[in-house]
């Protein structure tokens, strides 16, 4: 695809030079596996949003038991069977996606929201400020992440929002590191120096010049992290923190189906497949984005 821009003949009107972001998107679109990943994600996002319209059993999806129909194997009426309370598993998957996917997106969003500005401040000011911020990130990064998240989630009390906060607290330092490294090299660039020399205040430089310029690496990293964030969320829900029954989450569906798994694997099994597909898709997309964002690997005809 680079060749198209290179061999573009100098026509009457000067060819538009594609922006960095356009180049990345163009390279990204050539990755077939990643595009498949996008389809999977879109599917699960849509089914979670429109869950009540897509299933004939919205009440069961939301948690209402239906004991007479419990442990039905997958069949015509219930494509993925029913669980230990007789609820339609497909409906539970659609509703569970709401919790699992939102956890992933919001965790990454919160982590960027905390981590990125701190990284920019550390990198831009350097010196004492830098030292303090980076030592704090060191402390947070020295915990095994899931363990810290469990401790915080227990302290805050189980629940959807608390789980998200707990995971985000273990996650932001990665963005601080990423943005700091980028900022340190940006700081020396002429346009920043120019802004500084005409007296633009530091925080305005960070907000209007530094942060927009580190957006691409943040987006790439964020996509790569979405999968792990969802996995961590599922793990915390599996332990029993997080969303509480009767509300569904793919993680707590596995924990509820665990004791029945050897005889009736379909309900914990379906939830696991959902997590696996979504996380795999995010990882494929993240990998493709990373390759597309790196000029050294971008050329590759995939």
């Amino acid at each position, binding site marked *: 695809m680079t060749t198209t821009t290179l061999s573009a003949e100098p026509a009457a009107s000067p060819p538009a030079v594609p922006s960095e972001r356009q180049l990345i998107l163009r390279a990204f679109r050539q990755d077939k596996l990643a595009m498949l990943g996008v389809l999977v994600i879109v599917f699960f996002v849509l089914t979670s949003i429109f869950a009540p319209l897509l299933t004939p059993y919205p009440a069961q999806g939301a948690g209402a038991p239906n004991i007479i129909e419990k442990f039905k194997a997958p069949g015509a009426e219930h494509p993925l069977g029913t669980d230990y309370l007789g609820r339609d598993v497909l409906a539970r998957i659609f509703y569970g996606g709401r919790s699992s996917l939102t956890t992933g997106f919001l965790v990454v969003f919160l982590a960027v929201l905390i981590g990125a500005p701190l990284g920019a401040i550390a990198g831009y000011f350097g010196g004492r400020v830098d030292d303090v911020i980076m030592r704090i990130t060191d402390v947070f990064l020295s915990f095994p992440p899931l*363990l810290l998240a469990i401790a915080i989630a227990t302290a805050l009390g189980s629940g959807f929002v608390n789980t998200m906060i707990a995971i985000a607290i273990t996650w932001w330092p990665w963005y601080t590191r990423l943005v700091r490294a980028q900022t340190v090299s940006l700081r020396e660039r002429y346009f920043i120096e120019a802004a500084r020399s005409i007296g633009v205040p530091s925080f305005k430089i960070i907000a209007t010049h530094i942060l927009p310029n580190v957006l691409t690496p943040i987006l790439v990293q964020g996509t790569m992290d979405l999968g792990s964030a969802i996995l961590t969320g599922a793990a915390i829900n599996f*332990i029993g923190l997080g969303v509480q029954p009767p509300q569904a989450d793919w993680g707590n569906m596995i924990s509820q189906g665990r004791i029945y798994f050897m005889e009736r694997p379909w309900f914990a099994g379906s939830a696991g497949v959902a997590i696996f597909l979504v996380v795999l898709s995010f990882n494929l997309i993240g990998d493709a984005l990373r390759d597309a964002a790196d000029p050294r690997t971008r050329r590759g005809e995939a």
Partner: protein
Amino acid sequence: MQRFEYLIKRFILAIVVILSVMVLTFFISRVLPSDPAAAWAGSHPTAEQIAIANQRLGLDQPLHVQFWRYFTSVLQGDLGTSLQTKQPIARDLRTYLPATMELVFCAMLLAVVVGIPLGVLSGAYKGSFFDHLTRLVSISGVSIPTFWLGLLLQLFFFSQLKILPLGSRISTATAINNPVTQLTGFYLIDTAVTGNWAAFKDTLLHLVLPACTLATYPVALAIRMTRSNIIEVLSEKYILAARITGLPRRTILFDLALKNAIIPTITVLGLSFAYSLTGDILIEIIYSWPGLGSYITGAVLAIDFPVIVSVTLFVTVIYVFINLILDLLQAMLDPRVSLE
């Protein structure tokens, strides 16, 4: 001397980190909204019982006094008492730690022995069918929820094939007929040293599924890291120079390129340790493995805060020290590191 200085600096940093970790874990335990004294006093406590519990636990003291008390007792090896079992936590940790470590070390071993060679071959034959296959395996490995994979393996190897046990460290029959003499707490070592081969075999069989499940993420990670590292090294000028001189491919790959892969190997070790420790919590639930993971999840369900905080602190300290050792090892092997 520069290296010695680095060593000292790195060590001091580790101490500072551990102190800060203590402050943080202490802080986490105090933002707890539910009342720890009530949990300690048992179900339906009277106001008087709660007051006594508060006093016993030192919760009536100002925060800095509480922290100082906590800090000094931790330094003396006293991690407090479990609210649930009323046992000293330090003693519980000693019981559970070997089980966890045996599992974690097996997983690390698998990560290195399986992950690194696969990564090297995959990177060296980039674009080949083998490379595509390995990449598929590794990206699936980091995407699969390990606790779910554990269930699948149980379904297949225990329920269907009936060749591997469902969980726990040793079967009850073996524990009764050929009891394990407790020396190190690592059953494989204890049984091998005492020549208790029946129990050794049983322990090994019980380890297969949990260790493989736990190793999935580190193995996948090791493949990915080694692969990208080998690709990077192979594109370096000295490799090109070697190629131009007509050295055979095998010499280039295993003599020249792999030498530069020792550093990433250490990184892989560190990361697989980290991920094994984390993943261990979930694996232990699935396989009813009597280790730290089962201990802490039990504590989570009972909101047994001293246990959660102590396990977090304890594991983090191990984690920091392992990372310290790996960093120092890396500095010793790679002259470029000490220049940082």
